[in-house]
């Protein structure tokens, strides 16, 4: 009897709470003007590269009010695919009246998730973000061509990831944000190529030193618009 009663209160409580949620939308944008990914597809004088695949994981999203943690997103990992506009908007639900000054998230998948066996939804290995011959998620994947790349058809492939010491590639991004219901985050792809000598480094496909070095640059790609 007491159990039924407390279950009842619990379910009624959650119904009430659900009505009072605050919803924040986190939008990833690939161009400063927010119009989409035109320069991703065509090489021009200003952009010496084209991209045909660009995916990464955003995980463990947390909101802070100054230094106080005010919300941790329930969904552990989102797969962002720059060529799939739906995946660029992440919906974060939190209790009504939550207010924040900072957002923090990981680029990639943490080590606990990496050793947890088969997972579903965005973490399903059919998404192509899991290495097959060696266990582990690919945190950040980008493929395309670059004029200065000496490989066949100027092709480059970067599959960055790794969770095991000393090749832990997980990165944390921390940004100051306005307390608004929409947060727009720009991805500065040029910055990625600024940090690579594409003449010598154009294929990184497994967790190694280079994977970690390149991953260390990733937080610089994200900026609040």
């Amino acid at each position, binding site marked *: 009897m007491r159990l*039924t009663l407390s279950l009842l209160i619990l379910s*009624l409580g959650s119904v009430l709470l659900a009505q009072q949620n605050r919803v924040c939308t986190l939008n990833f944008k690939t161009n400063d003007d927010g119009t989409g990914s035109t320069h991703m597809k065509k090489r021009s004088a200003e952009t010496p590269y084209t991209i045909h695949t660009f995916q990464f994981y955003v995980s463990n999203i947390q909101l802070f009010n100054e230094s106080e943690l005010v919300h941790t997103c329930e969904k552990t990992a989102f797969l962002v695919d720059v060529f799939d506009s739906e995946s660029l908007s992440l919906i974060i639900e939190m209790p009504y009246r939550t207010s924040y000054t900072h957002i923090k998230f990981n680029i990639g998948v943490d080590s606990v998730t990496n*050793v947890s066996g*088969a997972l579903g939804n965005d973490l399903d290995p059919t998404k192509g973000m*899991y290495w*097959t011959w*060696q266990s582990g998620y690919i945190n950040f994947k980008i493929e395309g061509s670059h004029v200065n790349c000496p490989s066949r058809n100027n092709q480059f492939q970067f599959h960055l990831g790794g969770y095991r010491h000393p090749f832990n590639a997980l990165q944390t991004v921390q940004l100051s944000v306005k307390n608004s219901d929409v947060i727009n985050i720009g991805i500065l792809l040029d910055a990625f190529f600024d940090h690579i000598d594409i003449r010598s480094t154009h294929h990184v496909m497994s967790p190694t030193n280079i994977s970690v070095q390149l991953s260390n640059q990733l937080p610089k790609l994200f900026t609040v618009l």
Partner: protein
Amino acid sequence: MKLKSTIILISISIYFMGFFTDDVKLHRPVYFPDFKYDFNKNPLSEGKIALGRALFYDPILSRDGTISCASCHSPFNAFAHTDHDLSHGFNDSIGTRNAPALFNLAWQNHFMWDGAINHLDMQALAPISHPGEMGESISNVVYKLQHTTLYPPLFYEAFCDSVITGEFLLKALSQFQLTLISANSKYDKMKRGEIEFSEQEIKGYNLFKQNCNSCHAEPLFSTYDFAFNNLPVDPVLRDFGRSMITHQAVDSLLFKIPSLRNLQYTYPYMHDGRFDHLNQVLAHYENTVVLQKAGDKRIPKSIHLSSIDKIDLSTFLLTLNDDDFVLNKKHQFPRDILLSNN
């Protein structure tokens, strides 16, 4: 009114929770250690095990529909492969390693000879995607399965969802493999007090405990850690084992320690299948120094076996063959599912 419907809702959901409760518990012999596999994340059920068994034997998992898991892991060889030293796969390509036996997987955390795989669930991705093995991709396998008449109902029965996902496919394959438990050899019967060892078997057992148990620890007959057993590297294959994954020099030439259960069925031996016979293995160990782990260090251990020792040791190793496991019908090709349909 609202209260009443809430109560009804709650009781319905409790009823269904009970209805779908996953019901299968693996039998763990009392002298076995705790499971390593986390069953909470993938609770066993009859439906999922049966589905995993069908998938294990179905060549639909390979690109041209000719190779199944069982092509390289035969039930009659304790799920090892015995025709070749190096396993054969898609397009008759030859792999670089010998297919290991599959049993007692619920007690293991690392898979493959170099430990490249960190969880049983994720293991199947390797052979499915390997161009020389099944030459497929998991997303295409999911697509193919979804378009059969056979599989969507089986997935529905197992996971209450007829939309097939990579997660469900991998979890079902794990479930079948987790049921492959070898615990009914003569050694096991001795452990349970059902029979007694002969004098020669006891001598062999003592030699085993002295020389082999630090790596091939009973009752699983492996610690399932990595070790160097003094095999010289093959100059053509140049397989350095564990260090190819960790990129650490200390891990050079370390390989996953295989269990010594069912050796009668799992020849050829070692990661590259270089020995066809057990007496070649014992000749290798006859006068050798191996590196074993003690705490964080690897310490050398010398092994010396006289010719009588080798005979006694062989006699003991014979007690680790588990005929009941190898002949278990529940582990074999599921005729009722795979022959009736397709």
